[in-house]
């Protein structure tokens, strides 16, 4: 057993204990053996029943015996003449369960058996069950079995009670009582989160009543987290109450590379492909014809199921068409998480000029087409907590600003409150997302979030990585804001800036000495030729696979221990991975083993495996020659 101190007893005491134990074991095993004998012979008699009572009183987790007991009961009541007799048997059963429950308030099997009794007996008394569960929750307000049982009893009551709406209200008030007794009653907050939308629906509130209800919720939550800023319950409820807009997935850009006969599709989310995106072409005859080929994400060599930000389609055929069309439908992709979705059917096309010269590096932009079925953008209806209180965008912005002010007020009293700080990051990021800001305004939000993350990194040692990553996201967003713009067709989406594939300044990207731990949306860097991310805290360069045009990458002074990510980078000429955490030549070889570029200089000094004295660069050339062969 847990938590019991081991005290070495005297030999005499020990001997007595062993003897007592031995006789208990003999008795128990005897009863169990007898019971199983009855069971195997299907003898559902009183003796069998008594045996199960003895066993279960001592060992309520012995599920097989509960099963047998139920069979005995079923057998008994099938021979009973009256409902009264059946009822009586179940009453006794419920009493028995109460006794066993006292010793074991958290056994699944006891609750299962009780439910079975109530579901099987002719006339269950749900009101008395409710009383029972109230007592249970008074004894232990956090027993989730108890709360689950309460929900079960309530659902039964609401079936027979004509006043079903009232039940929702009384339950809601019950959670209010429990929360006021103890603000950190997580079970009560959870229950409330289920009841609140139901209440709004059942009682058919008008807009003003909804507003009042929601304001009271915010008041309740505020008193809770002001009273105990360290308790998670109220904060999590607060986050839920405020909610989050579902993010739109954007296709940043689609391109056709005639020389390699490839279509390149860049998403701003790491998506999986459920159904291959449709590729079709047109000749002069203007008949759309399906194009054969295969899709893969840049993150994978072969497995088509691999998720990725950038997807590449290689055509099986030659460029003897005039127009190329690619279609993506929302149901064909799976996004990286449930709060991010593609909201419309997308079709992109481009025209291939006949006199086109096959120069290296030319990408033809594929332009979005307006699809007739997209006349209304398949946008989600507003938005957060619309099941309780639909808000206009403006109201939502006001709500966020108000909550930000509330939390900042508390922060003044409790400057080291991790919950305040983390809540602020959530509120600020949400406000940034929905506000439609210009670059300068957006940057201000990012900077505030970065400052808060710095504080959290110091205060919350157990979750440092989470805040380092959040910080990196904010930094990256500011740094890449000049590469993208709001989509002219769909304001909730982003696209690459016009002509990005042609503007020389857009080919370089530098973000150094910012303690970056990750690159959240590497597809934004699709067009980058020269990359400098030195002096950061990146642990992986897997994201480089998205930078299909990359020629030079400086990743020195980071925390890289693997060189995966460069396989597809045919144009890579220089890779600086000095002063990282690479442990062996093998790691570097593995990174380049499937690489099909021409020649690449790799700078490796300052890594753990390098013996500076031993002419490391020479050895590297020898090693690379082997790989090239």
């Amino acid at each position, binding site marked *: 057993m847990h938590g019991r101190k081991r005290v070495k007893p005297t030999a005499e005491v020990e001997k007595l204990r*062993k003897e007592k134990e031995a006789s208990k074991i003999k008795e128990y095993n005897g009863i169990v053996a007898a019971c199983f004998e009855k069971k195997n012979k299907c003898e559902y008699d009183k003796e069998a029943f008594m045996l199960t009572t003895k066993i279960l009183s*001592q060992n309520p987790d012995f599920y097989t015996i509960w*099963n047998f007991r139920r069979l005995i009961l079923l057998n008994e009541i099938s021979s009973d003449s009256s409902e009264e007799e059946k009822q009586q048997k179940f009453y006794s059963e419920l009493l028995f369960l109460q006794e066993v429950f006292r010793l074991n308030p958290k056994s*699944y099997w006891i609750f299962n058996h009780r439910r079975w009794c109530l579901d099987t007996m002719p006339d269950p008394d749900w009101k008395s069950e409710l009383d029972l569960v109230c007592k249970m929750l008074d004894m232990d307000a956090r027993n989730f079995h108890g*709360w*689950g049982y309460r929900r079960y009893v309530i659902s039964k009551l609401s079936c027979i009670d004509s006043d079903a709406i009232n039940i929702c209200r009384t339950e809601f008030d019950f959670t209010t009582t429990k929360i006021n007794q103890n603000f950190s009653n997580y079970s009560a907050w959870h229950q409330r989160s289920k009841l609140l939308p139901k209440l709004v629906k059942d009682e058919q509130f008008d807009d003003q009543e909804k507003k009042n209800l929601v304001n009271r919720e915010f008041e309740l939550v505020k008193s809770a987290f002001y009273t105990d800023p360290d308790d998670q319950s109220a904060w*999590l*409820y607060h986050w839920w109450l405020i909610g989050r807009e579902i993010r739109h997935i954007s296709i940043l850009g689609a391109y056709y590379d005639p020389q390699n006969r490839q279509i390149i599709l860049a998403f701003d989310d790491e998506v999986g492909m459920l159904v291959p995106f449709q590729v079709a072409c047109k000749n002069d005859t203007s008949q759309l014809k399906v194009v054969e080929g295969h899709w893969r994400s840049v993150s994978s060599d072969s497995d088509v199921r691999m998720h990725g930000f950038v997807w590449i389609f290689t055509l099986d055929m030659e460029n003897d068409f005039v127009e190329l069309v690619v279609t993506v439908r929302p149901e064909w992709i799976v996004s990286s998480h449930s709060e991010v979705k593609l909201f419309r059917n997308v079709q992109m096309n481009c025209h291939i000029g006949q006199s086109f010269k096959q120069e290296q590096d030319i990408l033809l932009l594929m332009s979005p087409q307006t699809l007739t079925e997209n006349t209304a953008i398949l946008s989600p209806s507003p938005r957060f907590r619309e099941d309780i209180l639909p808000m206009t965008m403006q109201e939502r912005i006001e709500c966020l600003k108000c909550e930000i002010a509330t939390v900042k007020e508390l922060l003044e009293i409790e400057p080291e409150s991790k919950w305040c700080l983390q809540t602020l990051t959530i509120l600020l990021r949400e406000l940034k997302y929905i506000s439609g800001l210009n670059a300068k305004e957006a940057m201000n939000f990012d900077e505030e979030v970065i400052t808060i993350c710095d504080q959290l990194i110091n205060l919350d040692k157990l979750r440092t990585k989470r805040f380092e990553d959040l910080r990196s996201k904010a930094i990256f967003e500011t740094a890449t804001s000049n590469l993208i713009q709001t989509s002219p067709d769909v304001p909730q989406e982003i696209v690459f800036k016009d002509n990005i594939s042609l503007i020389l300044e857009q080919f370089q990207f530098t973000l150094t000495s910012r303690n970056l731990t990750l690159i959240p949306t590497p597809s934004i860097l699709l067009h980058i030729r020269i990359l400098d991310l030195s002096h950061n805290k990146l642990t992986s360069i897997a994201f480089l696979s998205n930078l299909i045009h990359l020629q030079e990458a400086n990743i020195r002074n980071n925390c890289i221990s693997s060189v995966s990510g460069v396989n597809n980078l045919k144009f890579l000429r220089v890779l600086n991975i000095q002063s990282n955490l690479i442990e062996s030549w093998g790691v570097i070889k593995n990174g380049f083993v499937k690489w099909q570029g021409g020649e690449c200089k790799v700078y490796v000094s300052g890594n753990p495996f390098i013996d500076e004295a031993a002419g490391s660069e020479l050895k590297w050339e020898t090693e690379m020659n082997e790989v090239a062969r």
Partner: protein
Amino acid sequence: MESSFMTSMEKTGRPSELYIDLHVKYIQSLDTKKDDLEYWLTEHLRLSGVYWGLTALDLMNNIDALKREDVVKYVVSCQHDNGGFGGHIGHDPHISYTLYAVQILITEDSLEAANVEKIVEYVASRQDRQTGAFTGDEWGEIDTRFSYIAISCLSLLKRLDAIDVKKAIEFIMLCKNFDGGFGSIPGAESHAGQ
């Protein structure tokens, strides 16, 4: 918590390496505690115990510390005609023990010793095709843990085709809560186990 553990290691001079031999001996000794009442009161966990012990041994590269034939013979003796496994010989079939059985047999490279087709049938029969949920056994307890168990089991057997995966997922999604966690049934509080 992590940082205080590290300092205590330095301060108190507690072990800094894994004492594999002792752990192996401990696991081997577990089936010998027949003098403890507790041993007998937990018979319904015997099969689970074999899984936990064997997996720990395997992780420590000591899988042979428990004799393979004995393990396989024991596991197979817990299978019922309907394909399900009980917690011990003679104990009623339940989906939880069925997964443990499959995991143990795969770990011991002895899946063919059991009736795999029947296992698939048993696990598939636990799904309510209307809701997508899974019951633990014929007595009808529903819990998302059983969804996990069913999908894990059939995934190991490469027989996910035997259930309605889409519906299974639909049910699980109904159990998602305000805090992003999942509960055992729709409406139930989030639990790390789910």
